[in-house]
């Protein structure tokens, strides 16, 4: 048994007041900034449960972000969003080398290409637009005012200006070469900033690829790492970013449906009216943000992290540039 499995078994045993065994521990792909491990827990009565461990990579500066993710998942569950049930959270890095939490394993698929291509997922393709709209409306209804979420900073000023300023600063600090297409997009965005429609919790990375689905449809919303307080329309725009369609461009919303259909479903679920012009602004911003994230990933490679995948992302920036030109031309 590995050190991690032994440490985990001791911790879980102490939480449950019994001996437990931890087996089939394996690391799941994805997530460079934190680790995700799947394992099986067996109690003395022979009962087994499949669970997931999320922890910061050991050696990271001490932070409490696992506690924040734990609290967000619990708040989302209370608001009726399908999420993995969170079980235990431990901030003491002495226990497993870094802060972590444990949640239920949700069986299913996350690969967007399989969702959009495989015959098996045809029912999921039909069900997901409504399910994604309903779940997103619930995300935006999460109560921000309780003490549990008081760690979320509340930005001063208009959400559009705050987010645009944040990513423009990152772009100026990180891009090693000039990008006229981004400069044109930044000007387009700066003179058309929408007023904040509402101030809610924003998931920040809501897209196909960050949900677990089965053949029948949505099972859980995951990856709550980019949550912030802002304009909920940011999540609608991000869902329309071209990169998340994986070539299924006839259906702008994640390769699944058109914009107007999704906006109506969201309006019905949230009980609000949505300005499509403002959603379009957030979609342009989303494509720019993804282009800047590609540059950030490439810089991680230049800084010495050996990864052909990170290296190749630098050359995907041009894809977002073309999309920005197409979206802003004559608009």
């Amino acid at each position, binding site marked *: 048994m590995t050190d991690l499995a032994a440490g985990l078994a001791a911790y879980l045993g102490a939480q449950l007041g019994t001996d437990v065994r931890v087996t089939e521990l394996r690391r799941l792909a994805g997530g460079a900034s934190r680790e995700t491990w799947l394992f099986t827990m067996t109690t003395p009565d022979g009962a087994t449960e499949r669970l997931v461990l999320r922890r910061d990579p050991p050696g990271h500066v001490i932070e409490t972000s696992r506690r924040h993710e734990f609290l967000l998942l619990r708040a989302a569950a209370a608001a009726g969003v399908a999420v993995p049930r969170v079980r235990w959270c431990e901030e003491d890095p002495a226990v497993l080398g870094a802060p972590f939490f444990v949640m239920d394993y949700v069986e299913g698929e996350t690969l967007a290409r399989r969702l959009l291509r495989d015959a098996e997922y045809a029912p999921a393709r039909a069900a997901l637009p409504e399910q994604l709209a309903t779940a997103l409306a619930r995300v935006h209804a999460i109560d921000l005012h309780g003490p549990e979420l008081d760690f979320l900073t509340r930005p001063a000023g208009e959400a559009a200006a705050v987010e645009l300023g944040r990513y423009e600063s990152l772009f100026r600090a990180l891009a090693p*070469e000039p990008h*006229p297409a981004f400069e044109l997009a930044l000007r387009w965005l700066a003179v058309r900033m929408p007023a904040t429609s509402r101030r809610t919790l924003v998931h920040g990375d809501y897209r196909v690829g960050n949900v677990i689905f089965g053949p029948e449809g949505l099972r859980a919303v995951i990856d709550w790492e980019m949550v912030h307080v802002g304009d909920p329309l940011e999540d609608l725009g991000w869902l329309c970013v071209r990169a998340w369609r994986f070539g299924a461009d006839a259906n702008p919303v994640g390769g699944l449906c058109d914009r107007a259909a999704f906006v109506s479903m969201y309006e019905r679920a949230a009980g609000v009216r949505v300005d499509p012009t403002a959603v379009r602004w957030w979609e342009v911003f989303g494509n720019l943000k993804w282009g800047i994230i590609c540059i950030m990933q490439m810089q991680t490679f230049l800084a010495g992290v050996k990864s052909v995948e990170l290296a190749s992302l630098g050359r995907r920036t*041009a*894809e977002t540039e*073309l999309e920005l*030109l197409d979206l802003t031309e004559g608009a």
Partner: protein
Amino acid sequence: MQDRPTARELLTAVREFLEADVVPALDGVTRFHARVAANVLAIVEREMASEEQSLLAEWERLAHLLRVDGEPPARLDSLRTAVRGLTESLVRRIREGETDREPFGRAVREHVRETVREKLRVTNPRYLGG
């Protein structure tokens, strides 16, 4: 001067080896990364074939837009530096709001679109469709 195969021919040989033999023999995340690696080599092959001609065309467009006289540099590395310098001037003019006025704005957008399409012909020709 080196003997055959040329650098491009060598790259092609390695990429074809990755695609035909390595990718099918792997699975999981390593298989995915081998496919990414083959794709990266394909990018380099296309870039080596077209770089000089693309840079010359880009220099001509920028010189016309920014009213720069003279001839493009003859050496490839000087040409790269010159295109970068002109693009930095262009970026300054966009930030100062000059592209808000026509017909300069339209001319700049046309140049930027052609430059982005040229990048995509190297990095991901399928993205351009058709």
